[in-house]
Structures are given as structure tokens and as C-alpha cells.
């Protein structure tokens, strides 16, 4: 495309189909402890593949 560049992202709609395994890290178990950030966490299923 000439006018629009789309960054590669994981489709949230697609993630609804196979997501929800619960193996991912809890939000505060990192460098956080006073806020809540999940966008930077890694999906354990995708990590395996």
C-alpha cells in the first residue's frame, strides 16, 4: 500500500479462537508490582511454536 503501512500484529479476533490456556505469566510477577501491564507479556503457546 502507498498511503498506509500496517505493522505486523497478532490478530485479537484470531486469538479468541485458540487462546485462554492460562499458562502465561501473571502480570505483577515481573518488574511491575505497582501497575498492571499485559501488553508486553509473551504468549506461552506462541513461544513454544
Amino acid at each position: 500500500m502507498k498511503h498506509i503501512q500496517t505493522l505486523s500484529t497478532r490478530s485479537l479476533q484470531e486469538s479468541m479462537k485458540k487462546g485462554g490456556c492460562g499458562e502465561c505469566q501473571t502480570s505483577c510477577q515481573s518488574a511491575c508490582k505497582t501497575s498492571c501491564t499485559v501488553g508486553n507479556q509473551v504468549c506461552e503457546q506462541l513461544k513454544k511454536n
Partner: protein
Amino acid sequence: MIHQYQNNGFNIVLDVDSGSIHLVDGLSYQLIADLDKDRTLSDDTLVGEYEEKYPESEIRESLSEIHSLEKAGQLFTEDIYKNAVIDFKARPTVVKALCLNVAHDCNLACKYCFADEGSYNGGPKGLMSYEVGKQALDFLVAHSGHRHNLEVDFFGGEPLMDWAVVRKLVAYGRSIEKEKDKHFRFTITTNGVLLNDEIMDFCNREMDNVVMSLDGRKEVHDHMRPFPSGKGSYDLIIPKFQKFAAQRKALGLQYYIRGTYTHYNLDFAQDVIHYADLGFDQLSMEPVVAPQSADYAIRPEDIPVLKEQYDILAKEMIRRQKEGRGFTFFHFMIDLTGGPCVYKRLSGCGSGTEYLGVTPWGDLYPCHQFVGNQKFLLGSVFDGIRRTDIVDEFKCCNVYSRKECSSCFARYYCSGGCAANSYNFHGRIDDVYEIGCELERKRVETAIMIKAALAKEN
């Protein structure tokens, strides 16, 4: 839902509900804004509106690209997740992580400490015994269902004050992994005062992550993180942290240099850059969360200054990345392709259900932030969770239970925010902490801009 913003020369369009991110030219930026306000606008109407500024062919070309993204489910999408997330939250949950407060005591007297220098709301000081810790690990295994990876953070107070017990607990955890078909991911958060070679070696063998507390420049750090005598702790801990971080970097292991910024260092980007100048490359710095009455609390009028600081930090990160001496900053880390599924993104942090805090005496709380607040005492590692009513309340906490989140683009990145912050400011766990939200939105925007800048570079 669409969120558009301009930062560092980029026109960024976030299609919030699909997670798609588009970098667009000025014309497309305007067209998308118009269509977001009124989806019935025809191509001809939009051509008429902009033909004095742009050639018709350009406008039609841009509109064609916009329409193709819409067809592909990457623009103007809707939130279709609510029912699925509410069902997901209602499922039987397992405990997958514990914050083990092995020490309700500390050898520093940090002025902003939410743990009240280890006493947590004025409670007694004390260290966790091996027996209590062992019971906590058994409790975790017993309540973890089929979950394989179990997380245990040694926290405090200062956990190195109870180091002998930490060592024994790690050994115990490892000894039952095979039989129980579990894997423990141990982490520790330390102020570094008692750090020595033996502890570093052990942590390099056993700890998935190490969080080292440092607030940045010497004068900033020493002002907020003194010893009880008033003397600063910077000079003692820096050489140890540098050695520890270098070892972990060489071994490919995770660590974080983590700080807290306050009203006293609103120019906190300089503190993060100071970390990098000391040779650290996995960095985190968070705003203090404190009542407005505290002299060091972040005030609403500080927010514009703080937002500018995130921009300054981002530009410096991009510059250093291009020079081959980049570093990571926790709140700018967004995994666009391998990030969490939508359930994780919308279902909250897991406090009170999947994640619990444990006191040195084995009492269970919804998370480390609630420890010491008797209203939230859930039970103990010895007799389990008695207050299932409180757990149920936390189970209902998600993005959809907070009305402010429905109009916020950042909800897929913050998961609805911190329940403890909500409680401390509004007396309920399903509200939002406004200053935290403002800063989180800025961090998400800036993190995406960095991705854009690095994508353009490549």
C-alpha cells in the same frame, strides 16, 4: 474503535479491537478520522472535501486502501469479546503464582515504601520460616490444577534478610517438580544491600528473573532510598548490581533494574538514561503510587511533564538502538506478534484468583499490595482459602467491570489496571486510578511509536 495520535513525526492509527496498527500519511489520517465520526460518508463526499488540498486520484487511492483494511478486519472493527471474557472469568480458576513475602522487615527505610518498610500497615515484623514457605509451595502445587509453570516471587520487605530460607525453599521446590509434574519459575526482588557472590551464583542457577531496586541518579536514589540512619544506599549497591547484571547478561538470563519515580524526580528520563550509562540494559521505572497528601506523590499537574519525559526517553532509546547500544524499558515493551491472547488482555491481572500474596506467617491476601489489610485476609496456606466471597469479587474484576475502560484504547494493554490502586483511591476494586491510567495511555502510545520508528528504519 479507532485511536489516532501523532508522535515523533508519525501518524499512528490504532484499530483498538483487532489490535492492528497502521502508519498512515496525512491524507489517510484525516480520512480515517472523518470516517470514524461518520461511517456513512461516501467516497465522493470525501473527495469533494479534500480535492482542494490533494489530487482526486490520491484521495481515491487512499480510500481504496482504507476500505481494503476494513474488509480484512483491520480497521473499524468492533469489540466482540465481552461475553467470551465474562465466561472465561467465570471458569474454575487455579492458583498459578505466589508472591512470598519472606521478610516483613527491611534494611532500608525507603520513604515511599507501600510495605511500610516491611511492616505492611503497621503489622509485626518477622521472617518466614522454612515450614511456612514449604507449606506455601505445597499449597500452590495443590491448587494449580493442570498448570505446569508455577511462579514464585521472593519479596518483602527485603527477601535477602531471610536468605537461608529462600535457598532451602528453592531446593524443596526443585525436589518435588518431577513427582508433581510442575516447573517452578523463581524470581527475587532485592534492594541489593546484602547481595554477595554466593547469592549471585545461586540466583544465576535458580532464578528466572531478578529485580534489582535502584531509583537512578545518586542524589535521587539516596533521597528516597536511605538506610534507617539516613545515609544513602547508592554507593553500596551499584558495584554489586553492575556485577550481577553483567553475569546475567553473559548467561542470557533476565534481570531488571527497577526504580520508582516520584514528584521529586519528574525528569525521570534522566534516571533511566543513568541506568543505561551504568551499563544496565533491562530497565524499568514506575510512577510512585501514593495518597495525594504525601509530599512525593505524583500530582495531576505533573502529568504533562511526565508525558514529555516518556517522549524524551523514547527518542533516546531509538537513538541508542540505532547506534547498536540499545536497552529495553519494561513499559515500552510491547510484543506485537507474540503478545497475549485477548482473554489475558481483558481478564485482569489475576490478583485474588490466580495470584496471591503470602505473609511470613502464611496468611493469604489477594496480592502483595493488599497484604496487611485485614478486610482482604483470604485464609492461610495451612487451612486454605476461607473467604471465597472475596475471591468471587476479584473473579468479577475485568475490563468490562470498569466503565471507564469501555472508552479507553489502552484496555487491551493494561487489562483494566491495578485492583489495589483502585481500592486505595476509591475504596473499591473495580474502579480505576486516574493518574495511573493517564500515564499508562502515554506509555502505550509511546511504545507503539518506537515500534513504528524501528519498523521504518528496517
